[in-house]
């Protein structure tokens, strides 16, 4: 009975928001109002069943879901604001638990343990890009972002690179998925100066983690009806390290007779990517190559402002931009492109079984970009972040 009552309340709340239209959109989005009617229950975490039955989901609210939100550095707090505005406008039943987590503002940042605890509790997190300074404040080699990944065992990063209609780029019809190992490789933070002037940096490759990421890639192919997985490596030079990665991938391949598998050396891969990116389907690679290829691929379809990514551990999912640049020079200028962050939100909604909201955000972005009237500066327009956000909301409502 109480569930019903609360549901009605939510319903009314939503229709009230719709009636207001986007008049109150740019008041600093206070989530407290939404929280007042929140129902805390473990069931709040309702995930998708993966079926293509979006039409079955009515746009009615379900129990509210809590999501950890890390605003990030640079322009990202502003972009998060635009995400919250959109979610509020469409009445998505999401509450945010905002945590300040930043390396450059290290004195006011939350502790890594607290952030990990929050994400483990909520299972989902929306995260802006973090600035990682060249010099460590704590004297440690590992930066905060890496600590977070290690702590959560966030081992796979998925960047879905697609061409948007209406975004000028060198190549059309790109549709590829870049899967990157996140916890080892060159990012193991094991560096030392063995003798004066000689620094050794250890790249760690283990069979179990390589198999795990390879299995993730092939499972992704199965779940999303994709046909081909390409392993990107440099096993001709690093015969043991990358050799193990390549071998792990081809070992796992034997369990997936329906999926094609090929290997490509990373230098060739970058060349192929700028000349003929349509050939790629799913790419799987170790940590550093992933970082480079992610950025390269983002550049092909419109830059850091339009590409979203998701990172997975067995238990939780973190949604962050695909090319993580904080865009420090644009802070406070209201010019950054919120597309990447909105797509993160859309992916997050899909992950928690709210396909309807997810689809409507994605379709609205597509519509706005295709129309080409409202464009931020990075896509050759002159509109502001707020104008773009408003246009997206208008396209939904």
């Amino acid at each position, binding site marked *: 009975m109480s*569930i*019903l009552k609360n*549901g*009605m309340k939510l*319903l009314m709340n939503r229709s009230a928001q719709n009636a207001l239209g986007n008049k109150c959109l740019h008041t600093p989005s206070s989530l407290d109002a939404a929280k007042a009617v929140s*129902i805390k*229950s*473990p*069931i*709040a*975490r*309702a*995930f*998708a*069943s*993966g*079926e293509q*039955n979006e039409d*079955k989901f009515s746009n*009615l*609210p*379900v*129990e509210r879901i809590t999501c950890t939100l890390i605003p990030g550095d640079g322009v990202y707090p502003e972009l998060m604001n635009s995400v919250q505005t959109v979610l509020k406008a469409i009445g998505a039943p999401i509450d945010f638990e905002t945590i300040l987590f930043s390396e450059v503002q290290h004195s006011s940042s939350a502790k890594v343990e607290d952030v990990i605890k929050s994400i483990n509790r909520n*299972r*989902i997190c929306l995260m802006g890009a973090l600035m990682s300074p060249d010099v460590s404040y704590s004297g440690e080699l590992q930066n905060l972002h890496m600590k977070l990944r290690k702590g959560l065992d966030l081992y*796979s990063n998925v960047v879905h690179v697609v061409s948007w209609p209406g975004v000028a780029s060198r190549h059309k019809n790109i549709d590829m998925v870049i899967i990157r190992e996140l916890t080892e490789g060159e990012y193991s933070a094991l560096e030392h100066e063995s003798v004066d002037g000689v620094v050794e940096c250890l790249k760690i490759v283990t*069979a179990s983690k390589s*198999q*795990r990421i390879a*299995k*993730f890639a*092939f*499972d992704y192919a*199965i*779940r999303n009806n994709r046909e081909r997985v390409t392993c990107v490596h440099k096993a001709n030079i690093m*015969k*043991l390290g990358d050799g*193990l990665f390549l*071998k*792990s991938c081809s*070992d796992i391949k*034997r*369990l*997936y*007779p*329906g999926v094609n598998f090929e290997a490509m050396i990373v230098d060739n891969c970058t060349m192929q990517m700028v000349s003929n990116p349509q050939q790629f389907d799913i790419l799987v690679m170790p940590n550093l190559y992933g970082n480079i290829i992610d950025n390269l691929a983002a550049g092909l379809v419109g830059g850091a402002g339009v590409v979203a990514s*998701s990172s*997975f*551990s*067995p*238990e*939780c*999912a973190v949604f962050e931009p695909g090319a993580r640049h904080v865009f420090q020079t644009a802070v406070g200028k209201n010019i950054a492109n919120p597309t990447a962050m909105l797509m993160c939100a859309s992916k997050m909604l899909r*992950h928690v*079984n709210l396909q309807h909201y997810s689809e409507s955000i994605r379709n609205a972005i597509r519509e706005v970009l295709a129309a080409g009237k409202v464009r931020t500066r990075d896509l050759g327009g002159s509109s502001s972040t707020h104008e773009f956000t408003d246009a997206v909301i208008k396209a939904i409502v």
Partner: protein
Amino acid sequence: MLGIFSKCTLPKKAGSHTIRQLSSLNFDIQHKHPQARRQVGLPRARYGGRNAVTMLPGGGIGPELMSYVKEVFLHGGVPVDFETIQIDPQSDNNDDLQYAIMSIRRNGVCIKGNIETRSLDTAIISRNVAIRNELDLFVNVINVQSYNNIPSRHKNVNCIVIRQNTEGEYAMLEHESVEGVVESMKVITKENSTRLARYAFELAKNNGRTKVTAVHKANIMKLSDGLFLETCKNMSLNYPDIKFEHMIIDNCCMQLVSNPHQFDVMVMPNLYGSIVSNVICGLVGGAGLISGRNYGDHYAVFEPGTRNTGSSIAGTNTANPVAMLSASADMLEHLGHKVHCDMIRTAISKTLNEDMVHTADLNGTAKSTDVVDNVIKHVKSIAGRI
């Protein structure tokens, strides 16, 4: 690390290569090589809290029951993606089957209906048995609990049947030694009996059960069933808090139909398990109610308890969907989705006990879809969807 270095600096030895193969591919051969079996299998397909699960709808009523499961999961917002694989019952090769087994290896968990094997070719083994043997699913567990408002001969039956699942009479070793004489081998091994007995006592201990009954026919098959009984007896010495009894299979069947309340946890070899689980399901309301679970060291397969195909009622909208729905709830419990599991179990019990929506096999008049709709109604209200 050392192994890798030695491999490249030293001249290749014949042995080192095999060892390396073994360590990286243990999931491939863990069944065939006892040494490798204990190693950790592949990581389960669980990403961001969502599981991929293999679904084998099988024949007869299987496909319709699976569509009900999908529907209930959709409305309950259950974090599971299904990889559906259809095995062609007519085919004379095992390609589909191999693919299905590989898929279970990848995902770790499977929900299945009963799979038909229509081919009469002796080279084509029963698909159900092949899945159990290939994945080394050595234990089958059926938790029989009567529902209050379902007409049945006995009320308040609550016992667990644990059945050896891979050997015994199902070893599939039969031959005609001379014309007119067929020998069928029943294989009992100490290793499999030991882990079965350990599983039974551990289950009893963890679920607060007080008694384990071993069912056998050691008075006739003194060596094979004798070994099974002996192993169970030895295992019981490790669990002094749990009472151990043994009973001969024919007596056991009689006791079951006259006084099923005396049983708590029952453990038995393969064929007796098949018989006893059917008897006991019949006592509480038939094949449509009870779900069964198959476990190995690495994999788990969930199915309706009595493994019937139900071809005669396929497509008539009269099959009881409860068994498959509770199998799906068992699966969610195994995957750690406790909340979703409870949600579906509560919905089922409300449907059967309070709303009294019963299909024809329970002397009701409801269609399968009526039951499913009623379950969905409860699932929705529990999950907070309006």
